[in-house]
């Protein structure tokens, strides 16, 4: 344990986070805004990585969990006028319930079949939001009476702190016995079961944890944006970005998800002058990275260190 705290990657991470926390004193509100969104996305990708990278569950619908958290919190705020922290907890709870609901088919289905179920879950959520437009705001979106803060610096610090804490917890989980059992269950469920581990319990727990962080992050994101809309938190395109970010950063690393998400969003902003072509360029870059280095950006860094 002591060795871990004095290891080079750990010191590097702490250093980067320390510099990041000082950014509000030096950079414009615009940059802070971009990074705030990126940090919430980072948590989406890290939660997805716990489910996919470790438990081996093909989840094509991360936005089902994110959307439940976002809309749970948003509706608690706009309909019931509850205090913000309570709303966020309600959102997280909604996401955890959704996560456990997804875990039930996941116990029976694998690979593309589970992938489709998760995809369909997103489509159904989208339909439900549109059908119950009266309470959800429908396609226009739900505007929220409360926000976290009107200034960009506190918003940025909240997001950074949230990402750091979530990342640390998810990373610790992935390196614990629990994470090892998940990995074993993902790679060879029969062998893992033969060793006496309760796979069912572990898988459901993995879905619940992933859902908890996705939901929290979704809830915080809508309180930052001030609106909850299908395009911002539920659309399949958002889910695709979460998955690409996790694979781009490096699967089975947790931290890779954060690196990939921040890279994707910042690269998209830098390329904004290209207009419509920016997404195309980002997609091409992501494709090249995963083809050249399947372990993603983090894998590239590691390879450089060992050679």
């Amino acid at each position, binding site marked *: 344990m002591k060795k871990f705290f004095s290891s080079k990657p750990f010191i590097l991470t702490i250093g980067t986070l320390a510099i990041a926390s000082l950014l509000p004193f030096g950079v414009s509100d615009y940059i802070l805004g971009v990074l705030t969104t990126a940090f919430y996305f980072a948590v989406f990708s890290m939660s997805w990585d716990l489910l996919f990278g470790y438990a081996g569950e093909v989840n094509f619908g991360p936005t089902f969990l994110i959307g439940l958290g976002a809309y749970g919190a948003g509706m608690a705020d706009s309909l019931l006028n509850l205090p913000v922290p309570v709303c966020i907890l309600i959102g997280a709870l909604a996401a955890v319930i959704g996560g456990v609901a997804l875990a039930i088919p996941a116990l029976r289905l694998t690979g593309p*079949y589970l992938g489709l179920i998760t995809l369909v*879950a997103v489509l159904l959520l989208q339909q439900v939001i549109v059908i119950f437009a009266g309470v959800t705001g429908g396609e226009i979106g739900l505007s929220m009476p409360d926000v976290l803060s009107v200034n960009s610096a506190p918003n940025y610090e909240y997001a950074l702190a949230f990402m750091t804490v979530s990342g640390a917890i998810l990373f610790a989980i992935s390196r614990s016995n629990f994470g090892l059992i998940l990995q074993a269950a993902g790679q060879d469920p029969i062998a893992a079961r033969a060793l006496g581990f309760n796979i069912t319990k572990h898988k459901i727990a993995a879905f619940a944890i992933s859902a908890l962080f996705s939901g929290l992050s979704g809830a915080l994101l809508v309180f930052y944006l001030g609106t909850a809309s299908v395009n911002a938190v539920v659309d399949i395109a958002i889910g*695709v970005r979460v998955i690409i970010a996790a694979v781009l950063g490096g699967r089975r690393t947790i931290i890779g998800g954060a690196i990939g998400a921040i890279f994707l969003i910042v690269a998209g902003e830098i390329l904004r002058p290209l207009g*419509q072509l920016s*997404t195309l360029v980002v997609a091409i870059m992501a494709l090249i990275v*995963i083809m050249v280095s*399947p372990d993603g950006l983090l894998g590239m860094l590691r390879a450089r260190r060992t050679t």
Partner: protein
Amino acid sequence: MLVLQILIDGFAISTLYALGALGFTLIFGVSGVLNLAHGGLLVVSAMIAYYVGTRLGLGAYIGAGAGILAGIVTAMATYLLIVRPIQRSRVIPARERELFVLTGTLLWGVMLQEMLSYIFTDTPITVKPLLPGIVDFLGVTTPANEFITAAISWVVLGCLWLLVNRTKMGKQLLAASINPRGLTLLGFELSRIYLLVWIIYGVLAGIAGILLGSFLGTSSEFIPALTGSAFSIVVLGGLGSVSGTLFAAYVIGYIETLTAYLVSPSLRNVPALVLLILVLYIRPQGLLGRR
């Protein structure tokens, strides 16, 4: 009258769904690739058919020809630029190739969408129908295009059946889907067969895309939804099973049409999604799938 209308509309849309999903199931059955850029292939063909047929004013038939050609080119690009490099890559561990093919084709779908919306904008367009005008069929007025669409789809499906079951080439495709290693041992070039399947896939996707574009209109924004529909139909029928895909296409097509006519057009795809979840839960291998 309503019954007849539902029957006709449902038949046309279901046949189109079958054709649209067929390429997807074929490519999975033979080479084990789930192409998440499938919708991209459909829309590229439709867009090119529209551009050549309507914008350049060369007529519906030349437009359709250009669209099919575009389908073949896009399918080849998908295989040669994305799928094959990943399958042959030395750095990607064999166990994870499937995931990388999924991610790669997903990214390729995003690229196709962005390229199309850059070149043609994302305003929905309609491909010029091969047969304009309307027909009065037993008292139900229906666009002639609807009949032509169903007819072409069935002819194409029939041709594919003949190709697979009655030709030597088809036997090779079947063998490749059952036991690729055995086929290689018998002295057949597997890479040539895969190339061939992707060309057939391109033709199928091209025709399906053009018909979809003339029937329902098309836009680069439809790409993810089209991939999703094809994926649902194929999994509902059983991955890799051609007859299952046809059956599932009719189930979904008719359920959607019934909902649209009897309940509300805005709820069109909800019952099909619920059915899909139920079927997957009770019978994970799909309606006619083999495990």
